[in-house]
């Protein structure tokens, strides 16, 4: 993780990503991996990775109650409670109820791009990746711009996503188990329960009827 937020470490937030594809239009998409079985996961296991999917009343608890910090630790009670820290930020309906993208746009927060160099600026990439999905479910759109406002390319590439079209298999089960997009989404970025935020490109209705 490359950045540090000057307000509070609780603001260390946002977003994983899918993949940088390449312009190899002539190359056919690789078929899904034949035997890459979805991780077998019980709901209990999965919730370990998805703390932002807890009931609304349990989210943004003060540090002594959040299940992350040691409630007996001498410094725990001196930490700012997320509900206080987030109160002035734009709201969202999921995750920790903060619209972080909007907060950045509104300059409500001013995260440092580099931990050691306060003057370093992000290199924003305006590249959308669309991943088609079967059936009526809208296709997934991965916008690089919103992610590169927070993250360096090397945060995701090549460890989490190989920057090559067809080189990454991504499934909901993987994400839920904290892999691929789930490295961030569900932990510090909005969870998978916010389906619409990723499945955002509606299908052509006429094509669906065929």
């Amino acid at each position: 993780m490359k950045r540090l937020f000057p307000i509070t470490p609780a603001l260390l937030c946002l977003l994983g990503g899918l993949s940088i594809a390449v312009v190899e239009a002539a190359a056919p998409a690789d078929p899904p991996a034949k035997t890459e079985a979805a991780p077998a996961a019980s709901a209990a296991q999965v919730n370990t990775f998805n703390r932002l999917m807890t009931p609304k009343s349990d989210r943004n608890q003060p540090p002594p109650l959040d299940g992350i910090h040691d409630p007996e630790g001498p410094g725990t009670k001196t930490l700012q409670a997320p509900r206080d820290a987030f109160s002035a930020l734009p709201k969202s309906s999921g995750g920790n109820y903060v619209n972080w993208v909007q907060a950045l746009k509104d300059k409500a927060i001013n995260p440092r791009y580099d931990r050691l160099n306060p003057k370093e600026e992000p290199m924003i990439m305006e590249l959308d990746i669309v991943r088609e999905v079967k059936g009526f479910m809208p296709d997934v759109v991965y916008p690089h711009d919103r992610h590169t406002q927070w993250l360096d390319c090397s945060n995701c590439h090549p460890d989490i996503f190989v920057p090559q079209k067809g080189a990454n298999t991504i499934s909901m089960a993987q994400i839920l188990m904290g892999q691929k997009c789930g490295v961030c989404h569900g932990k510090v970025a909005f969870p998978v329960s916010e389906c619409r935020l990723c499945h955002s490109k509606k299908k052509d209705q006429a094509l669906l009827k065929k």
Partner: protein
Amino acid sequence: MVCALGLSGLLMAAGAAWAAPPPFEQKMSLLERFLKQSATSEQVGREGSEALRASLEKTRALRDEARKLYDAGETAMAMQRIDQAIQQAARLSQSNAGPDKRSWNQQVRFEGLMAGVAAFADAYQRNLSALAAEPNRGQGSVPPPISPAEIVQRVEQAQALAGKGDLEAANTLLTDVQNQLVSALRGMLNHKTLVHELKFATPEHEYRYELERFSGLETVLNMALSRATIDENGRRFIQEQMEKSRTLHQEAERSAAGGKFQEAIGTLEKANEYLSRVMNMAGMGFP
């Protein structure tokens, strides 16, 4: 009372009584912990260089100034000063990191950069070829900022530096190469939308895709059910739908085992439809 409430009850009760101190006091408390209890502070005070000791003194001076300002009611100025003190403390902590930790950090960075440069160089080459093949866009339209030979040469230089133990210089060199590659990729791909088409090579691939979808939907639903507040009727309905989908899933597996993948796909599609129907009911914002 304790037994009746249980641990979660006790935590909730503690939460009701707990109130965060004012932000200034929170920051001051963290700073005091650094100055009075941290290993860095203790080590610098005992055996630190003159520069590190001066830095520690500066941190203390900023803390004292912040306290005075806060006590005088100058909250905004006090917050500014305490932030400066915390930043000073962070710098001190970084400067005081032992040689082992610095070396370990550099080694991790070196490995990350080597992998990154290889991946981005590969992507750059592929995109360059693809752009050259595009009508109206010759290879010259995106001038390579760095030639493949130059990349190889610099990577070899970096490896040699790392071999001599100068990881910092190696990383500086690799960072520069990586930045140039990323910058070139940005020039090629900016403002584009790239589509990963969904194509299946064989019915078996499509079956496996549906199987993954089933597994994903079922896991999401189980998780949502364990957390969401749903009334008894709703919960029963969801479980009925899930039961139907499981039956269909087993049927599909039997078909696939017999090599009847088209049939298995159709059955799994129905199973997934049952699960999709109850997503919103389980508190998921299903489109």
